[in-house]
């Protein structure tokens, strides 16, 4: 059995490790040269990359479409923030609590859906429903500030207290960078194991996967639980970076949708796609904000953003990373799900709700 680190590059062309090392070095050196604005944008990029990677485990690897991941961000954020505000508990301990609750919530939603054979679009809608349900519940939950919000004491930006996550943006930058890289390594590790192969098999064809002895229920449950728990970690950083939480924004369906986009645009099921997608989309959004601010037209930024999204979807349905990787000679990351389904998939999608039918 290979050591986890070397397996990160297993089966890749030689250029890949060098490119990755270059990327890590450049990201690590960034705070030395970047100003406050650039650093804040890069933090947004890292948040987006991390969340997309965590979501990608469910959708990209196992083919489970969740449009309710804001639920897990919110759980992580509120659990750690409320414990800190009420008892002064370290956010790292709060993270433990948040991750556990989020993983349990994910497991419960998954278990209910998969037991009752809710799949496809219906599963996606169910994830939305649970997130929205929780949002409204949180709006009326006094202990976490309800709809008027939960606020953390503003940090002293001069010193960095890592144990309590109080400090300068650069501290968050490095923590998030470490989290993104750790998730990248985890993704590679998982894809090289039995579970990774099983997830991909389930993503491609559930019936065929069953026939090969794969316990589909347990594998899917593992994907949801893992993805939910990892997503909650980002929620903790979110809470302590922004210092304020409102159910209205943290559990918003818009957030669930936004966090999927880098993974889809970058390349579903790939390891580096979500990171690339995060750079592209955050960069695009910032560039549009700056450009359209001068013209003072409400909504123009969003219009252009939507247009770019539509163009990418039409022209590069597999995402941008596989396309770039092939051109850079980095080797396409492990097989993305087929974006063009064979005609028989029409029948299958209609069977999204199998009702014990023959």
């Amino acid at each position, binding site marked *: 059995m290979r050591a986890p680190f070397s397996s990160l590059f297993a089966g890749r062309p030689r250029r890949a490790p060098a490119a990755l090392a270059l990327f890590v070095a450049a990201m690590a050196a960034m705070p030395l040269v970047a100003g406050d604005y650039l650093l804040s944008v890069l933090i947004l990029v890292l948040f987006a990359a991390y969340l997309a990677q965590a979501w990608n485990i469910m959708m990209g690897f196992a083919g489970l479409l969740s449009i309710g991941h804001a639920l897990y961000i919110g759980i992580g954020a509120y659990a750690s923030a409320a414990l800190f505000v009420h008892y002064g508990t370290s956010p790292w301990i709060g993270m433990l609590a948040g991750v556990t609750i989020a993983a349990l919530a994910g497991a419960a939603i998954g278990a209910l859906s998969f037991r009752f054979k809710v799949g496809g679009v219906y599963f996606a809608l169910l994830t939305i429903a649970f997130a929205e349900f929780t949002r*409204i519940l949180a709006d009326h939950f006094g202990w976490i500030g309800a709809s008027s919000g939960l606020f953390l004491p503003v940090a002293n930006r001069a010193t960095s207290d890592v144990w309590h996550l109080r400090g300068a943006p650069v501290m968050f930058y490095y923590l998030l960078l470490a989290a993104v890289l750790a998730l990248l390594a985890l993704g590679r590790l998982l894809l090289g194991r039995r579970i990774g192969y099983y997830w991909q098999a389930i993503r491609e064809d559930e019936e065929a996967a069953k026939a090969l002895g794969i316990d589909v229920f347990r594998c899917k449950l593992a994907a949801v639980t893992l993805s939910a728990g990892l997503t909650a970690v980002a929620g903790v950083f979110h809470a302590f970076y922004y210092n304020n939480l409102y159910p209205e924004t943290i559990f918003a369906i*818009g957030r669930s949708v936004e966090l999927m986009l880098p993974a889809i645009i970058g390349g579903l099921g790939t390891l580096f796609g979500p990171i690339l997608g995060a750079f592209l989309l955050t960069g695009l959004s910032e560039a549009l904000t700056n450009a359209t601010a001068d013209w003072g037209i409400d909504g123009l930024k969003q219009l252009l953003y*939507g247009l770019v*999204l539509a163009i990418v979807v*039409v022209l590069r349905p597999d995402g941008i990373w596989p396309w770039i990787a092939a051109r850079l000679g980095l080797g396409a990351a492990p097989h993305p799900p087929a*974006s*063009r*389904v064979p*005609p028989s998939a*029409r029948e299958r999608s209609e069977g999204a709700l199998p009702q014990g039918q023959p």
Partner: protein
Amino acid sequence: MLLANILVAGLLTGAVYALMALGLSVIFGVIRIVNFAHGEMMVLGMFGAWALNRFLHLDPLWAMPLVAAALFLAGYALQRGLINRFVARPEHMQFLLMLAIAIMLTSAMLMGFGPDARNVQLDYAFDSYDLGGLLVDKVRVLAAGGAVAGAALLWAFFRFARTGKAIRACADNYLGAQVVGLDVKRLYAITFGIGAACVGAAGSLMLLLVDVHPYLATDYTLLAFIIVIVGGLGSLGGALLGGLLIGLSEALSGFFIDPSMKSMFSYGLLILVLLVRPQGLLGRRL
């Protein structure tokens, strides 16, 4: 008596919800595309009726057929030109495309109409009928009447019109429809147009009841989903039943508990139905 008033108001609003949800149900039932831009189309219909009222002084009730016709054409073109390429793509790609369309629609409306809430001034806005102590708002009766008329028209179309029957054949058996020489592309475009017309008509009627602003869209999209799934996808009666149920549930939870919690009960109902009877209350077993 107060309770009765609230129940009736909820039911009448629910009828408009039902027409909106019918549009979604028709599109998903036939084309199998999940229209995540449905709420945006609803708000577009509301703004259309608002503009007709503002500039041509048309009553939203009379604006309804015009708005429906305009949205039919827009929906037809959209399906023909763009969405049809995505019919056989995986769900997440369809979702992304509809999302891009939704974002563009919302921002276009933001640019066109601004972020403020708009309403129509009607001389009968505060009239109500007194039915032996039961007070019913006139606008609600008119809106519900319009919605029922729209739904009846839709039912007649699918039941009696040649094209309507062809579309039904398409929904039942895609391959078979192609084999017998139906122009599936055209039928899909017509179907999307009809779905858009329904939601446009519902938007016009809704303007009688609420103010319109661009950010309403997401709520309507989710509401339409809830109704369609609770009632049963692809079932006309299901959409009607779902709309009335959600209208009732919103009215009751708003009255007894807290208006801000009304949609929580709708989501609760959705979760319950998805888990216990995923084909919906009136849906056929898939």
